[in-house]
């Protein structure tokens, strides 16, 4: 059984088919790449997977359970977490609180217990702090735990977004252009981090990326999207050498 099994999903906006007949199957622990020219519908696929849009057609199975048409928060609770192309951090919260917000559904106490500072508040907050610091350490952010998120340098903001997504304990992690705006050194470091996350958390990862070096470096399988449709999919090296893919990117 694949971790993510998407069959023939599609959506149109005002007659325009943004994504059409899209299918993909991702095994547990796989590092999977979704590539394609600008405007091909990659982010729309992410939005369909995370319930931002409801697909007009098709089904989405996560670890065997049907999540088609569910709301974003339900889908997150089922086990999909994501990052965004244009970073979306909680900019006025501290780095630590960003991750703790991600832990929201896994470390619970009631609002009343929080206001009255009952023992459970102290116990759970302590556990939350420990867990959040652990995650920050993975991304080498523990020194900046008290910083305001918006004060972090760009590369670290991207990392924090991944840490926050992981805090929700997902089965599948979606990364939307994680290397966007990074220099080659930062990108190289990010590749290491992604690989490390996959290995350490046994995470299944689907990522959108334009940086071919990153894609060919870490993705095991690829799907190429063009004009909302799957152009081809398969092993990374096979796909990248496909003539149609080169044409789609560079034109005739």
């Amino acid at each position, binding site marked *: 059984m694949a971790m993510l099994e998407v069959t023939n999903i599609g959506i149109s906006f005002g007659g325009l088919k943004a994504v059409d007949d899209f299918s993909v199957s991702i095994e547990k622990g796989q590092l999977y790449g979704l590539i394609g020219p600008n405007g091909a519908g990659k982010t729309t696929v992410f939005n369909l997977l995370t319930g931002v849009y409801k697909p007009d057609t098709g089904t989405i199975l996560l670890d065997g359970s049907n999540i088609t048409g569910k709301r974003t928060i339900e889908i997150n609770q089922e086990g999909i977490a994501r990052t*965004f192309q244009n970073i979306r951090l909680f900019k006025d919260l501290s780095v630590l609180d960003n991750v703790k917000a991600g832990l929201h559904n896994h470390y619970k106490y009631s609002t009343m217990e929080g206001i009255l500072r009952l023992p459970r508040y102290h116990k759970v907050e302590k556990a939350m702090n420990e867990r959040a610091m652990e995650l920050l350490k993975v991304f080498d952010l523990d020194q900046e735990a008290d910083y305001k998120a918006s004060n972090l340098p760009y590369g670290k903001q991207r990392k924090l977004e991944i840490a926050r997504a992981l805090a929700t304990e997902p089965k599948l992690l979606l990364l939307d252009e994680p290397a966007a705006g990074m220099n080659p050194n930062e990108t190289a470091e990010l590749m290491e981090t992604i690989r490390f996350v996959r290995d350490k958390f046994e995470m299944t990862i689907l990522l959108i990326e334009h940086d071919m070096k990153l894609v060919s470096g870490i993705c095991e399988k690829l799907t190429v999207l063009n004009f909302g449709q799957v152009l081809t999919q398969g092993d990374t090296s096979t796909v990248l050498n496909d003539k149609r893919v080169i044409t789609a990117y560079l034109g005739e």
Partner: protein
Amino acid sequence: MKKNKVLVQNSITYAIVIACWILMQLLSATGHVSSLMKGLMVPLCIYVILAVSLNLTVGILGELSLGHAGFMCVGAFAGAFFTKCMEGVIPSVGLRFFFALLIGAAVAGLFGILIGIPVLRLKGDYLAIVTLAFGEIIKNLINVMYVGLDSNGFHFSIKDTTSLGMEDAGVVIIKGAQGITGTPKAATFTIGIILVLITLFIVLNLINSRAGRAIMSIRDNRIAAESIGINITKYKLMAFSISAALAGVAGVLYAHNLSSLAATPKNFGYNMSIMILVFVVLGGLGNIRGSIIAAVILTALPEMLRGLNNYRMLIYAIVLIVMMIFNSSPKAIEMRSVFMERFKKHKTTAKEAA
């Protein structure tokens, strides 16, 4: 380390409030408090509670509300209504006041939920205008409401007292635009301060807890908050209704500080909501201590300027405009940071020289 910082900051806030109370006690014991000042003490507590609670909606949740006075109005009438009805049942004024506070908070909180459910879907300026509209509707409805009580129970009307159709022995409790008269003056400065402290306790502890984090994450980025599984509607409603309930408490305090309670544009109209918003914005969005200080200064300022009579509101208006420009204009902010930098440099060079 961070937790301690929060703890220290919150303790300072509580300490300021308690210090104010002690100072006032000392001053009044030595006879240094004018009657004008005395009359101002409970209203100050009311404004502080209103400002702190509105900051929860505007600063912490990040939604602009122009209807806070409406919730205060609901709380005031619910509380005063209870006090009047229970005159015979609970003879102790203090006890009645205590229950009135709970009931005022509960009813205002309930209104917060009822209004919040449809309204919180709207954003920004649209939410602002709708909350303003709700505040006006509440005030308007209370002004046409007649409620009486006799041995048959409650009687309602939106016309006049005679259409209540009551027995001769019945009492009219809410009398349309005249409102409720004859509420005992149970509010004191000490009770006011205790309520301020309770408000602070609730708001500060809420902010620094799981729910508070969820609320602030919605403020900072709704889409991201949703993507990590935070229930947007639940936490928006929570912040909005707690804020409304606390405004209700302020309302009950207000109602028990006067012998007659009527809903006028002056006390419960949009102008009041705007005044509280001014406290919140000048005190700093999300800055609870700032709200307290702004509420106290801006309430005391026009009173202090009473000697200037007609000019005081004019001065207030000018101060408001100048402060906003100084605080928020991009140019002023830039100039200030340049100045601060120079100041710092100056300091370090001075140190090096020494």
